[in-house]
C-alpha cells in the first residue's frame, strides 16, 4: 500500500514536474530566446512614399525642358525686349526679396490667382514683345500673398518699370539694402560659379537661369545639364577654410 501510494505520489510529482517544465518551456523559454535573439527580422515600416519632398532638393529637378513653352536652350527671338539685371534688380527691394508685379493685375486675375497660367511655363508673349519670367516655385498659387502690383504700376502698361521708385510710393529714407552679390564669383579661372544667393523658394535653378526668358547676364550657357548643383554649390559659411580643432600631429598630447 505504502509502495502504491508512494508510486502514486511519485507519478503525480513527476506529472506536476513535467507539466511545470512544459509550462516553463512554453512560457519562459520563448521569452528567453526573445531576450537573447529578438524577433527574427526587423520591424517593417511602410515606406512606399517618400513623404513630403524637401523643397530645396525636389524642386531642383522640377522644370524639365519638355515642360516649358519654349526650349531652354533657345535664344531669345530677334526684337524681343531683353530682361536685364537692371530691370531684375529694380523690381526687388533687396537681394532675395519677392519681386513686385510690374504689370496690371485686374481684380478678376487677382481673385482667380491665374499667375501660373503664364509664369509656370514661360514663353514669348507677342502682345508684350517679351518673354514671361518663369517662377521657380509654381507649387504655390496664392501669388499675391508675396508679390504685389505697384500702386503706380496699375495702368502704367505691361512690362513698363517706373524708373523712379518714389513714384510707386515705397522709398523709406533710412533703408539700406544689402549689396547685390557679385556675379562672377568662383575659385579659379574657369571653375564653376558659386551660388551667391540663398536658395529658399529659389531652389529651381533653371527657372531663372535658363531659357530665353532668363535675365541676360545670368543665363546659363549649358541648360542641358539639369543637375546644376553637382557643380555649383552655395556658400553657407564665411569660414575661409578648414582648420583642425586640435592639431595633435604638431606634437605633445598623444
Amino acid at each position, binding site marked *: 500500500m505504502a509502495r502504491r501510494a508512494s508510486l502514486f505520489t511519485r507519478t503525480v510529482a513527476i506529472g506536476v514536474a513535467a507539466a511545470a517544465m512544459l509550462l516553463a518551456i512554453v512560457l519562459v523559454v520563448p521569452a528567453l530566446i526573445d531576450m537573447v535573439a*529578438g524577433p*527574427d*527580422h*526587423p*520591424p*517593417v*515600416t*511602410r*515606406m*512606399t*512614399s*517618400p*513623404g*513630403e*519632398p*524637401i*523643397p*530645396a*532638393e*525636389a524642386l531642383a*529637378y522640377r522644370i*524639365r525642358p*519638355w515642360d516649358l513653352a519654349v526650349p531652354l*536652350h533657345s535664344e531669345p527671338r530677334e526684337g524681343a525686349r531683353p530682361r536685364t539685371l537692371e530691370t531684375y534688380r529694380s523690381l526687388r527691394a533687396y537681394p532675395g526679396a519677392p519681386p513686385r508685379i510690374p504689370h496690371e493685375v485686374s481684380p478678376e486675375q487677382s481673385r482667380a490667382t491665374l499667375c501660373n497660367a503664364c509664369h509656370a511655363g514661360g514663353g514669348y508673349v507677342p502682345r508684350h514683345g517679351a518673354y514671361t519670367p518663369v517662377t521657380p516655385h509654381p507649387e504655390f498659387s496664392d501669388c499675391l500673398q508675396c508679390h504685389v502690383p505697384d500702386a503706380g504700376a496699375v495702368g502704367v502698361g505691361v512690362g513698363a518699370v517706373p524708373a523712379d521708385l518714389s513714384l510707386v510710393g515705397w522709398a523709406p529714407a533710412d533703408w539700406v539694402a544689402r549689396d547685390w552679390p557679385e556675379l562672377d564669383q568662383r*575659385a*579659379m*579661372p*574657369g*571653375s*564653376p560659379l*558659386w551660388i551667391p544667393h540663398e536658395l529658399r523658394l529659389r531652389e529651381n535653378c533653371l527657372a531663372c537661369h535658363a531659357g530665353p526668358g532668363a535675365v541676360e547676364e545670368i543665363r546659363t*550657357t*549649358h541648360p*542641358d*545639364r*539639369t*543637375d546644376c*548643383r*553637382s*557643380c*555649383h*554649390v*552655395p*556658400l*553657407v*559659411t*564665411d*569660414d*575661409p*577654410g*578648414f*582648420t*583642425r*580643432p586640435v592639431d*595633435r*600631429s604638431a*606634437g*605633445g*598630447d*598623444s
Partner: protein
Amino acid sequence: MSGVDRRTFLKQAAMAAAAAAATSLVPGVTFGRELESYLDGFVASADVTWHKTPCRFCGVGCGLQVAIENGRAVAVRGDPASPVNRGLACVKGYHSVQALYGRDRLTRARVRRNGELVDVPIQEALDLIADRLRDTIEEHGKDSVALYGSGQWTIPDGYVASKFFKGGIGTNNLEANARLCMSSAVTGFMTSFGMDEPMGCYEDIDHADVFVLWGNNMSEMHPVLFSRMLRERDRRPDVRIIDLATRTTRTSYAADRSILFTPQSDLAIANGICHEIVRRGWANRDFVDRYVTFKEGRTQIGYGLQDDFSFTDRATDASWSDFVRFLDDYTPERVEEISGVPASEIRWLASLYGDPSRKVMSFWCMGLNQHTRGTWVNNLVYNIHLLTGKISTPGNSPFSLTGQPSACGTVREVGTLTHKLPYGDVTNPEAREKAAEIWGVPVERIDPQPTHHTVSMFRALDRGDLRFMWIQVTNPMVTMPHLNRYRDGAEKDGRFIVVSDVYPTPTTDVADVILPAAMWIEREGLFGNSERRTQHFQQLLEPPGEAMSDTWQLIEVARRLGYEELFPWSYEEHIDRIWAEYIRFHDSPDHRMAPLAELRERPGIIWPYVDGQETKWRYNTATDPAADPERGAFDFYGNPDHRAWIWLRPYEPPPEWPDDEYPFWLNTGRVLEHWHSGSMTRRIPTLHRAVPGAYVEIHPDDAREMGIGEGERVRLVTRRGSLELPTRIEFRAQPPRGQVFVPFFDETLLINDLTLDAYCPISAQPDYKKCAVRVERIGVE
C-alpha cells in the same frame, strides 16, 4: 603677326578645337561660351600649359585637364577627349587642384620622441622605419608587421607594396581600405562569374532604356555618370530611372520613381523580382539553358562580430527546379511583408526587367556592398540579369560602381589584399609560381595562407598580434567601423604606426612616424576606374618640401631591408619599369593591359586591350577576344564550366535592428561636396564653405514628436558609443521615419565611433548602413 593678332588667333584656334571636340562627343551640349571664359587670358599666355589627368577623387574616373602656370596648378576643366565625362566634371573635380595647397600640408617627416612629434629629415625617418620593421620581424615574426593602403594608391604604389610584402618579407599582411568599400563587389563577381570587375562599360548608359539604382545615391556620389543618365532621359523620353533606396535623396527626386524599402530587405526584393519573372514566363530560358548554372551556398552564415570568427562557403549544384522552388518563399506579397514595398511595385520592377524590348542597367555601390550579406545581394542582382539574359550587351548591364579612383586598378587588379597576388590568389600554387618567377624570388617565400582582412587586422593590432603597421593614403582612424576600439588599439604601447599622408588627420595623430607624401600629379602614376579603364598621369608639379611618392617611400625602405634586387630601378625610369613588369601578370586575352606609351597619350584605355582594341563587353563572343565563339553568343570563361552562376541566396536579417532601447536605424555615408574622410575636400574652400560640418538628418515627423528643431544639437547613442551633433531636418535628403543619417567626413564628429563592425562573412566588408541608435534631446543648456 602682331602680338595681339597672335594671341587672338591662338585663342580662337584652341576654342574651336575644344568646342568641336565637346560638341562632337556630346551632341547638343553647348560649351562654347563657357570654354571662352575658361580660356580667356590663359591659352595666349606662354606660361600656362594644360595637361590631362584622371580626377583624384571617385571611382568614376573623369578625365580632367589641369592648367599649370609657373610650377603651380591654377585651373581645371573637364577633358572633352575623355569618353568617361566628355568634358564635364563635378564640383569636387573642378576644385580638385586646390587640395594640393592646403595651409597645413605635410612637407617634412615627423618622428615621435618622448610623446612629441618632431620634424626630422625624411631619410632619417626612413631609416627608423626600416630598423623597426626589421626588429619587429626578428622579435615577433614576419606576420607581426602589416601594410595597409587604399584604392587611392596608384597602380605602381600597390604593385611595389605587393612585391615588397608578399615577395620580399613573405607575409600576406597586406590590405587596403577598399576592403571597406568594394570587397563584396569582388566576391559577388568572383562567385557569379569567376572573374572580377564589370562586363560592360559606361557606354551602356547611352543604350539602356531603364536604370535601376540599388541603394545608390548617384546624384551625389557619381555625379557625372548621373548627369549622363539624366541627359539620356532628356534625349529619349522613354528612358526611366528608378531609385530603389532606404532614404530619399537628390537621386530620388530626379528619378521617375522612388521606392523606399526597409534596410536589408533588398535581398528579398531581388528574389521577389525573380519570382515574378519566372511566374510570368519572362525568363529567357534559351539563355539560361545555354549559359547559366545554378548553385546553392551555406545559410545562417553569421556576422563576423567575434575576433575568432571564420567562414568558408561551400557551393553545391542546384537546378532550375530547385531555383523555382527556392523562389516560392518570395512571392511579391511575402516580399512586401519583409520590405514594406507594395507587391504591386515588385511586380512593376519585374515587368521592367522582364520586358524583352527594354535594355536594363542596374547600378549599385555602397548600399549593396556595405552589407552583412553583401556578396549575396550582389549575386542576386546578377541573378535578375542572368535570368532575363540582359547582360554583356550594349545597354544590358549590371554595373557595380566603385568609390575610389583606383579601387579597381590597384586593389582589385594588382591585388593588394591578403588573399591576392597580382594575378590569382595566394592559395593557388600556379599563381604563386607565376609571381615568384616574375619577381625573381623563391616560390617558398610567397606564403600560401591568407592572414588578416581589414577588420581582423585592426583587431589583431588591438590584441597585440600585430606590432607594426604602415598606413598609406587612407585615414582608418575616421573610417573604421566601431572606431573607438581600433583607435584604442592603435594607441596601445608596443604598437609602432607609420602613416604616409598629405595632411594631418586623426590617423597621423596616432602615428609614431609621419611621412609626407607626394600627391596625385606631384608624381607620375596610374589609376584604374570602375569600367576597367586604366588612366595615366604625368608628374606635373614638384612635391612640397621633402614629400615623396608612396611608391618611392616603399622602395626606399625595402632597399634598406636588403631587397635591392627586387627594386633595382632608378627614380627616372621606375614607373616604366614597374608597368612593364606588372603587365606580365596580365598578359593574356582576358586581362591584357595597354603599353605605357599609349596610356601616356590617351585619356585611358579599357582592358582587356588586345591587338589595339578595347574590350567594351566581356563574355560576349562578338566583342571579347577571350570568349570562344564555339560556345555561342556568350562564353562566361571565368568559371570552369564556362557558365555564369545563379545563386540561391535567401533573405537573412541584419545582426542589429531598432528595438525599444535603440529605436532608430543609423545610416551613414557621404555628401556630394566631401570625399570620404574629408582630409582633402575640407581643405578646398569652396567645398568646405558649402558643407562645413557633419549633422544628423532626421525625419520631420520624428523631430516634431521629440520636440527637436532644425539645427538643434542632439545626442546619438548606440551600444558602442555616443556623439552630439546638430540636426538637419530640411536638408538635401530625408531618411524615412525611424531612421537617421550622418555623413562620415567630419573628423571632429566621428560617427564611426557608433557604427557596428559586423561584416559579410564571404567578403569581410563591414556594414556601415545599418545599426540601432537612440536619439536623445539635449535641450537648451
